[in-house]
């Protein structure tokens, strides 16, 4: 039985006070397979992006993206099949229509451009995916922590009520 190498936590990583947290919503047929492709090719990218798998990018409710931000994500990525390649014929057409609207809404809420990234990644584009992740992590790192939950609390959104309870009882 191969022994697991016990690795000491990297000194630099623990010393760093903050690491960007990014959630990536990926469709199963193209982008998720594209991310697998990056792994198979051993392309490197920083471990700041956590992947959530859905069957089609059409399933990515804009509310999932706002939920991620509201829960403390510093950045969100949405990836799907290229237009014309959708496993479900036209699911990604809906994504294509929704995401620009969502981007404007997020901008209107004061979210910096660059925290929300929408890109098409095919099953063969492992290299594109790895490059995209590196780029997004860098730009979010440059923007610094978002801490949306903290900001909302600061500004008294929700009439000073505990936001959590307010939402659950609405």
């Amino acid at each position, binding site marked *: 039985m191969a022994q697991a190498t016990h690795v000491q936590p*990297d000194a630099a990583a623990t010393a760093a006070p903050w690491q960007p*947290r990014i959630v990536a919503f990926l469709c199963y047929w193209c982008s998720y397979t594209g991310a697998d492709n990056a792994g198979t090719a051993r392309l*490197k990218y920083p471990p700041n992006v956590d992947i959530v798998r859905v069957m089609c990018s059409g399933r990515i409710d804009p509310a999932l993206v706002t939920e*991620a931000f509201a829960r403390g994500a510093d950045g969100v990525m949405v990836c799907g099949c290229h237009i014309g390649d959708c496993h479900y014929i036209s699911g990604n057409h809906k994504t294509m229509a929704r995401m620009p609207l969502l981007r404007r809404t997020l901008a209107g809420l004061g979210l910096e451009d660059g925290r929300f990234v929408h890109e098409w990644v095919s099953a063969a584009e492992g290299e594109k995916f790895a490059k995209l992740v590196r780029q997004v992590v860098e730009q979010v790192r440059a923007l610094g922590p978002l801490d949306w939950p903290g900001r909302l609390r600061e500004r008294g959104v929700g009439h000073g009520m505990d936001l959590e309870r307010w939402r659950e009882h609405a």
Partner: protein
Amino acid sequence: MSARTLAATETEREGVRIGVFICHCGGNISDVVDVKQVAAEVAKLPNVVFATTHTFVCSDPGQALIEGAIKEHALNRVIVAACSPTLHQATFRRAVERAGLNQFLFEHVNVREQCSWVSEDAAGSTAKATRLVRAAVARIRHLEPLDKRRIAIHPSALVIGGGVAGLVAARDLARRGMRVTLVENHPFLGGRMAQLDRVFPTGEKARDLLARVIEEVVRDPRITVLTDAEILDSEGIVGDFRTRIRINPRGVNEHLAYRGNAIAACPEETINEFDFGLSRRKAIYMAYPGCYPPMPAIDWHTCTKCGKCVWAVGGKGIDLEAQPREIEVHSGVIVLATGYDPYEPLYGEYGYGSFPRILTLQQLIRLLDPEGPTGGQIPVDNTARPRIGFIHCVGARQIEGVNQRQPDGKVKDYCARTCCTGALHAALTIKEHWPQASIVSLYQDIRTYGRGHEEYYEKASAQGVLFIRYDPRHPPKVEKDPTGQSALLVRVNDLLSGGLDLELPLDLLVLATGVVPHDISELINMYRCAVGYDSFLLEVHPKLRPVELAVSGVFLAGCCQGPMDITEATGAASAAASKAAALIAQGNVEMDPFIARVDETHCTGCQTCLTVCPYEAISRDAETRVAHVNEALCTGCGTCAATCPSDAIQQFGFTDAQVVSEVRALLTAARAATIA
């Protein structure tokens, strides 16, 4: 998403017992990710009753470990953190099922392709793997048992195309007990094969062979033959296709007694497409002697409804006011046998259309047919010693930059496979009737590849057919003979003589034309067929699945897939019938259960979901006025679930509760890590 679903949090759920198995992948994962630490972290989470690591969870001992733990710890949810789910999700689902647990109470976490293989940052990757497993724990609490959908396969087939491939496919399917509907676009069965005379390699008459298959088809009570019928649209999936078909009126029924009189009385004439324009036919006509159905049909484009035919037969058996009717055919599988068209040379290509005495191979075959338009005579002025030339590879093996592009912007660069043997066969037929004829064959390569085909080449050589090989980059040039001693003059550079420029006076030139797919663009859109660069339909795999389309339940028979001779086309048709019958014999097909379902108590009937569904699987129930998902049509993309403004639609396996709790758990862990 509503407050209802947002209530999903990372708290304990009663009765849920989760087992977590983290794979080393023999070091592929554990060299970077500290798997023991991940296991220790997740073991602390609510509902997790068992967490361990293993060198290879996918191995037999690894699977045995899962099965044993399920029994020992009474697990009712299983998480494996290993490679990508595309590799081993199915393996683990089977293991879980063997231990008596529903296979969809399993969650696969990808910590190899997403963690250890993409980062050398051990601490960061360990933290990431912990977050991902933690998210899976949050998500799996909300999983419910699901069943694979089983769709019963209707034991019937729809065969599109009534040529020899379609006929053979229909016959073979019916012999296995299937109900078959055979749809032919033309008023008569037989397709392109009916236009041939004698066929290689046996020399039998094509229409005699065809008559035997047609007889077998029409005699079989399980086969419904629809002629002059077109496919309007088709919906459904494998096992349950519903196809709307319009049957155009024949205008003639079985009460017609004096069909000869009716045809003779018709004053309207048009070009006879059966003879490739070499003859004319009436508006009420029979395609060929011995055709099926054995009664005339009316060509409504040519008929003026003057009524002379009705007069000639005493008013019985002809109805000029017949209307088309539409029917719906329910079938479990579909066989496409839509066939080919002969390549029609472009105007001026090798003099075609500009000079007389130039025929295509298909036209020559019609002329050599004793039942053809000339009773077997060929149009040559010099009957004593006719000089006849063949040019091979017309509309086949074309070269970009040398040959003129087709209207679709491409050149026909593939070998049409049938024309070499066909041309030699025709040359031998000419020699048989006119031994004094001198024949030259201008070719690139002779491809008489089939069994018994090479003999035609040897026989033609022995009988004095002169073979001249030309360079495809410098094809022969055809012009009118300036001396007037022959009809045509062909200039060609002969490679076999070391590059001599030859001038060949000819009385008749035959273009051995290739094969192009019959235009079925509407069917291609309807069934979302894959099409190759050569415009023929594309199989799933040329060797492993040669007669199946990527669309499940749709099969390919014959020349719709590429140039084939009759032997190959009937072979493909029988293969397609076998494949289709094997699928039907399964009784049902299994599909993933991740479909959408409407909560009728929350649906407001706004119908937004109807507009986004790519499969038109959602309809509005007239009675309840709420949305309803057709489970057979739903493929589980979840677009409707993301769209519903009332959150009344949930997608199994990807419910709001499941996905939201996954996102929250990822970020809770993030916050915890930041604080730490």
